[in-house]
């Protein structure tokens, strides 16, 4: 009788690891007895690079961390710098930011649903969610000219005004998506294979989840009713009406239910933001700190001078440090920015939700089958660009 255990490298080049995650598994037969995730294959030193860039030149780099939720990353960074400067974005920019970050949440959750379903055998889902994602990427393209790395938010507002065809595109999403979500539910929720692969898999208790620092949909699936959009509202979230979906089971199926319900709540927020979109400026009027609008820069002398100074020299925020967190689609996304009074951040730290969530992987999978590891990695919803930065 052979009693040796076997070590298996899952990844880094494996499609079910959602990028370049490597998991070293020690197996007894098909049962996992030890699991060590190894990260870092996509480390690009964003925190170091940010120390040598003017404040607003950091924004494009934040897109590239969680590339499925670029607007959330932009928002967290812009809010942190705005807090440092004492600048507040005008109402229209705040509403647009809420609307677009909720579209980002839909985008991120849709890709999660497609890839997670693909991993555990429901291949057609990927095609359906990418069909829907196309509508969202069209909106990205309309506002920023880019389909993925949008870089649309600026310190003090937005890069440009919302385009004229923005509203019909958002209305189309609001109209079609509820039907699509019902389609997904028809395919998955009562599907026997789906239920067998997800119910009771990857369970982590509420106490363990808190101890492991898990945030976001995973924490809500473990029964903690907490959402930073409600607990510490930013960018006018307190003016929107939405629910925080929770589940008690804390397995892969509960996470699926939470994310699906979150997408429905996102649609509610988008509806409210679109209906109540205020008129006015999309950039705060703070000369010397916030860029002027394009028209101003072209037709007003002072605005052009400020524009020139901002682009060449930058601005000097007061000395100090801020820690701003937002609820990104993956969880609690934090930006810790230290300013020494110079034009570049002295230190920019990103608190990545995926990084902390994936560190709890071994708690989900030890004692379960190898095939469940795939379901667990999928249900955590990681983006390696953000884990490794």
């Amino acid at each position, binding site marked *: 009788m052979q009693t040796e255990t076997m070590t298996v490298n899952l990844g880094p080049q494996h499609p079910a690891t959602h990028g370049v995650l490597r998991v070293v598994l020690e197996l007894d037969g098909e049962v996992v007895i030890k699991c060590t995730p190894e990260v870092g294959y996509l480390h690009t030193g964003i925190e*170091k690079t940010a120390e040598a860039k003017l404040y607003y030149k950091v924004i494009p780099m934040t897109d590239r961390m969680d590339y499925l939720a670029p607007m959330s990353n932009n928002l967290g960074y812009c809010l942190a710098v705005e807090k440092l400067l004492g600048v507040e974005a005008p109402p229209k920019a705040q509403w647009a930011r809420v609307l677009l970050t909720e579209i980002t949440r839909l985008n991120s959750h849709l890709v999660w649903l497609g890839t997670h379903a693909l991993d555990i055998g429901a291949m057609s889902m990927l095609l359906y969610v990418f069909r829907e994602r196309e509508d969202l990427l069209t909106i990205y393209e309309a506002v920023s000219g880019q389909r993925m790395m949008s870089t649309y938010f600026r310190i003090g507002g937005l890069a440009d005004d919302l385009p004229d065809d923005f509203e019909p595109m958002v209305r189309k999403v609001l109209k079609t998506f509820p039907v699509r979500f019902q389609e997904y539910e028809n395919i998955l929720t009562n599907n026997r294979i789906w239920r067998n692969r997800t119910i009771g898999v990857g369970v982590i208790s509420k106490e363990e989840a808190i101890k492991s620092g898990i945030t976001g949909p995973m924490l809500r699936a473990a029964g903690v009713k907490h959402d930073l959009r409600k607990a510490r509202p930013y960018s006018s979230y307190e003016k929107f009406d939405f629910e925080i979906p929770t589940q008690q089971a804390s397995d892969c199926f509960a996470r699926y239910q939470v994310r699906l319900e979150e997408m429905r709540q996102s649609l509610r927020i988008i509806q409210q933001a679109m209906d109540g979109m205020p008129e006015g400026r999309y950039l705060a009027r703070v000369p010397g700190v916030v860029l002027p609008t394009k028209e101003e820069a072209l037709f007003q002398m002072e605005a052009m001078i400020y524009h020139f100074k901002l682009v060449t020299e930058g601005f000097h925020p007061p000395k100090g440090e801020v820690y701003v967190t937002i609820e990104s689609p993956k969880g609690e996304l934090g930006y810790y920015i230290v300013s020494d009074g110079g034009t570049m951040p002295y230190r920019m730290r990103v608190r990545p939700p995926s990084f902390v969530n994936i560190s709890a992987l071994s708690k989900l999978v030890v004692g379960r089958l190898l095939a469940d590891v795939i379901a667990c990695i999928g249900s955590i919803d990681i983006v390696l660009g953000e884990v490794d930065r």
Partner: protein
Amino acid sequence: MNNVTRERVTAQFGDKILATTESFGELAFAVDKSAIVALTRFLRDDIALKYVHLSDITATDWPEREQRFEVIYHLYSYDLTEYVRFKVHVADKESVPTLTGEWDTANWLEREVFDLFGISFDGHPDLRRILLWDEFEGHPLRKDYPLTYETPQFTYNKDLPPEVIK
């Protein structure tokens, strides 16, 4: 809200607190490194505070100071919905007590600080590099580490002196 935290921490650990600041509406304590474990455990278990979530551990490098590193902890309370920040000042080659006994999150976060700053944590069960590869030399987030330093990593240039690209 911040006042509750401030009062309870000062009442309990007054002699270990080196400085208290409140800027941008964020409460921060600079504490003696010997107290950090007891202090965070107190905040986590205290019934009126319940800072149960260790949000982040990171560091900053101030090379001109005598104690060049600041290790920074952010704790969050789901009940108070408030963050609190703790700072521990350490010199080069000095270590900090680990929080892995209190929070499992601390494991990877401390490994990251060790990797990028070279600050070691006493009692950490698995202190090795996390983002960079094991053979990497230096700690990139230190201020004296050049931004565009090309570390040799291929067979054709591994014996050449490192090159700084301008």
